[in-house]
């Protein structure tokens, strides 16, 4: 078994309104910053042991499917690195 960190990034699907991101963007603009767009994502870092990268990724993938993301509104990606 090898120790990995699987990083799951969950974000709203393109086209799904994100009022929190829009509000945050407006707050940055009020502070005088210039920007075209702002997107918010949740990042989960999962420390786990698995036989190989593929097994670690597939477990993280299932965690995203079953809890971390809501497939109705979210896309997610999984990146795995040895710890």
């Amino acid at each position, binding site marked *: 078994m090898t120790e990995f960190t699987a990083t799951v990034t969950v974000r709203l699907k393109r086209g*799904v309104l994100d*009022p*929190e991101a*829009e509000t945050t963007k407006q707050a940055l603009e009020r502070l005088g910053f210039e920007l075209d767009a702002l997107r918010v994502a949740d990042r989960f870092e999962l420390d786990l042991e698995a036989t190989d990268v593929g097994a670690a990724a597939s477990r993280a993938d299932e965690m995203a499917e*079953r*809890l*971390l993301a*809501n497939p*109705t*509104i979210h896309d997610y990606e999984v990146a795995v690195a040895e710890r």
Partner: protein
Amino acid sequence: MTVAVVQFGGSNCDRDAVRALGHLGIDAERRWHEDGLPADRSDLDGIVLPGGFSYGDYLRAGAMAARAPILESVRSAAADGVPVLGVCNGAQVGCESGLTPGAFTTNASARFQCEPVHLRVERADTPWTAAYEPGDVLSIPIAHGEGRFEIDDDAYDDLVADDRVLFRYCDADGAVTDTANPNGSTGNVAGVLGERETVAVLMPHPERATLPDVARSTDGAGILNAFA
């Protein structure tokens, strides 16, 4: 025979639901989620997933409660035809658990909104709306920060084709308009049916529009009377 109002840590409309149901002569009791549903299904008239902030809205509103063990029992009871109503946080739990389609997420305003709204009854041939006529306009309050109904375009088309939209936000005359949409919900959807019409969720609070002494309207009583 009783209606089980499932109480999670952070539920806060469970008492209101029991009281409103009691006012209608419907026996109801709070049921702590860890205690499960009554083992004898004949003791169970229905299930309410009440409003509140279960698990502090961690991760997403309703996400944690939707994966609590009692939801397995709720799903199983629902599949057997036991009436299940999700209100507000209970509606979020219903969608997160797959009992009902779509998702309820952050209001377009990005604010918590607590206000009376109008709902148009889309279907009157369900247990939840038998007291009304199609097109009736109900006045029932909302109180949520994450009530914007989201669903992808194809699934929304299916929802409409299957006639599973129960209520839409509308103006006082029943017109479904953008200005009458309090939270940016797709299609002004305020409540939907599950795969069986005995399962329904809605963001507005019928239990807050039932008791004549404390509510501005009693329009919500008809929804709760599904359990009678």
